């Protein structure tokens, strides 16, 4: 009996000691004479981007003694969960970065601070004029500016020029008919007599990164998800129908995409290209870095090239691609708005944007940088993507957008899984989106 009681007492003491240990871990809140602000960004969690950001932060601290910046990396898929939980409860990182998707929601729920007063002090409209007008649209609401754009790129088609040469393809496709032919030529068995193990292209159909990639096909055909006023679904137009059926046919009839296409997310698409399982993918500036990172043997910087998204033959639509943008925001709960503004200003100024290109191959939101910076002017990739920015637009900037997009994607998957006919799937998507838009 005694042994048992001793054991219990032992456990009790161990617990108590552990509790004390943990409580003392709490006391690591140091006494700060200096101002401490936190910067959270999903790109801090990545190798190359993270390093670049940390160098920028170090430079900022050097120029601003008295302000200490705490970098807080967060995984992209977990970002909104973490941010919104913290901000809802009155806390959260002082400065943070977002892509375009959730911005309107954040603005609507009051999770980002209005930066207009700060911008006025910098010179208001004049300060803003260096940014492409289009890049200011996602971060502005009611004439109030809530965030500062950092970089923008347009989606293009990335391809393996070596595989093109081997397949005897002389020129890059300009319209969707040529695209289909090119895909067919590239889909084959690399080992004679073996199974098909090389395909033309892999589209992203999984949730992650679906938005940027698929939309370009729809727009390339001259269609779009919503009407220009973003109030209704535009999926009942003949162009939308054609685009939808085209993709379903590419997958089911022509079989130019690798099997398992419904699971392909952006990582998988990059892997396919990196390991020569596909010859093309919808991508942009970062694709080169990332694909090469997966497989250095590919010699990506040499063999990978880009061409603009194909269009419907005979037409020349104004918009045929989609824009991606990363912008920086301030937390309304921040206790150091002045220091936070300094950081935002620093990260989006000319010098930092140039560094961003050198480190990460990403175009800037500032006209002055894109039009005059040497390395940008010389990059073969930058020239293609920069031109495409003119012909690209954002996805609808409304709070209901994520839900609408998901409704569309779910129906597209149903069509590919042969659960519904393409026309039925499109019709259902159209109705669901209208229902969502009517709800609010």
């Amino acid at each position, binding site marked *: 009996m005694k042994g048992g009681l001793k054991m219990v007492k032992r456990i009790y003491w161990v617990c108590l000691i552990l509790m004390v240990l943990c409580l003392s871990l709490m006391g690591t809140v140091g006494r700060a004479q200096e101002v401490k602000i936190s910067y959270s960004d999903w790109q801090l969690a990545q190798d190359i981007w993270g390093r670049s950001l940390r160098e920028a932060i170090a430079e900022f601290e050097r120029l601003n003694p008295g302000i200490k910046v705490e970098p807080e990396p967060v995984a992209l898929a977990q970002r909104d969960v973490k941010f919104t939980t913290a901000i809802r409860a009155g806390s959260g990182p002082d400065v943070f970065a977002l892509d375009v998707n959730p911005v309107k929601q954040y603005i*609507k729920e009051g999770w980002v601070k209005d930066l207009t007063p700060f911008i006025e002090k910098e010179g208001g409209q004049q300060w803003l004029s260096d940014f492409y007008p289009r890049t200011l649209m996602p971060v502005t609401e009611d004439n109030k500016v809530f965030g500062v754009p950092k970089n923008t790129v347009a989606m293009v088609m990335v391809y393996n020029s070596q595989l093109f040469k081997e397949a005897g393809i002389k020129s890059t496709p300009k319209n969707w008919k040529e695209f289909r032919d090119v895909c067919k030529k590239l889909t084959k068995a690399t080992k004679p007599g073996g199974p098909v193990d090389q395909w033309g292209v892999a589209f992203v159909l999984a949730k992650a990164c679906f938005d940027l990639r698929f939309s370009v096909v729809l727009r390339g055909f001259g269609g779009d998800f919503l009407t220009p006023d973003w109030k209704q679904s535009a999926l009942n137009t003949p162009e939308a129908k054609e685009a939808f059926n085209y993709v379903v046919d590419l997958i089911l009839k022509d079989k130019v995409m690798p099997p*398992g296409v419904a699971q392909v997310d952006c990582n998988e698409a990059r892997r396919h290209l990196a390991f020569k399982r596909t010859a093309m993918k919808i991508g942009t500036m970062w694709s080169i870095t990332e694909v090469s990172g997966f497989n250095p043997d590919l010699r990506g910087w040499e063999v990978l090239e880009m061409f603009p998204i194909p269009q419907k033959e005979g037409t020349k639509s104004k918009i045929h691609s989609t824009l991606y943008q990363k912008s920086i925001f301030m937390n309304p709960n921040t206790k150091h708005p002045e220091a936070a503004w300094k950081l935002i200003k620093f990260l989006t100024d000319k010098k930092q944007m140039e560094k961003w290109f050198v480190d990460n191959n990403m175009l800037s939101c500032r006209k002055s940088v894109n039009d005059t910076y040497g390395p940008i002017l010389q990059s073969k990739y930058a020239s293609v993507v920069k031109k495409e920015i003119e012909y690209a637009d954002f996805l609808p900037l409304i709070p209901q957008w*994520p839900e609408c997009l998901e409704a569309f994607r779910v129906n597209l998957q149903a069509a590919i*899984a042969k659960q519904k006919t393409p026309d039925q799937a499109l019709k259902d998507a159209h109705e*669901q989106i209208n229902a969502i838009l009517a709800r609010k």
Partner: protein
Amino acid sequence: MKIHDRYKGYIFILPAFLLLVGILGFPALAAILQSFNLMWVSKPSFTVSSYVNLMKDKEFLGTLLNTMIFVSVTVSFHLLIGMGVALLLNQEIKRRHLFRVIAILPWTMPDVIGGLIWKFIFDTLPGFVNAVLIRGKFLTEPIDFLGTPLLSFLCFIFAEVWRGYPFVMLILLAGLQAIPRQQYEAGAIDGASTIQNFFYITLPNLKYMVVIAVILDTIWECRLFGMVYSMTGGGPGYSSQVLSLLTYKHYFQFFNTPYAASIAVVLAVFMLIISIPYLRMTMRREI
């Protein structure tokens, strides 16, 4: 003695009670308030519109059906396999400890990670199952497990049956070990066969544990989130989606706080309804 006993009873449960009410009370209330659009929304105003919209939402109804099917199938298999393995491990086998550890291994995988691994196993190109099928020359083209609606759901159920059965097994095993030897010896004297032993000695003793295991497992499976999130994401379409995932989507991806909260409330009510008969069974045992 009786009066003392009553107070003593309260004292014993006091720490647990304080902890739970103290920490869980506010969040539980908050969840309900959010579903009525009263808390943590930009413009609070009491409305049942989320519930009304829910009933019209095809995706919600489909997900509800999925959840019901998923829970009933999974818990049933857990019980079957768990009981079988518990009986096995209760025998006087050599290397008992080794087999016991192997038996709980599936459950040591956190559900989020488990989902990832099973996704990898069923993956179309680099996946294990397809590798076996293709290298074994059974097929020339891989099967798109996770991209076919029914298959995806079945794979998800399979993965969760694999992962969750040790839980039931563990509960039942501990219960089996508590059955007094004398009962079996008495049975042997009476000339009972193995099967008779099982039905007349083992099962009656275990009845209570089985009920508890079923209640806990059912609640566990209703809440299950991590596995489906990382394995199929609910897809393709929403063929493998369960209510917990739908709640997550609406809360953290579409930022529809009231809608998400109302789904959660429906899920909670659903769980309550399922467990009531079992709760009654255990309460009946209360003296």
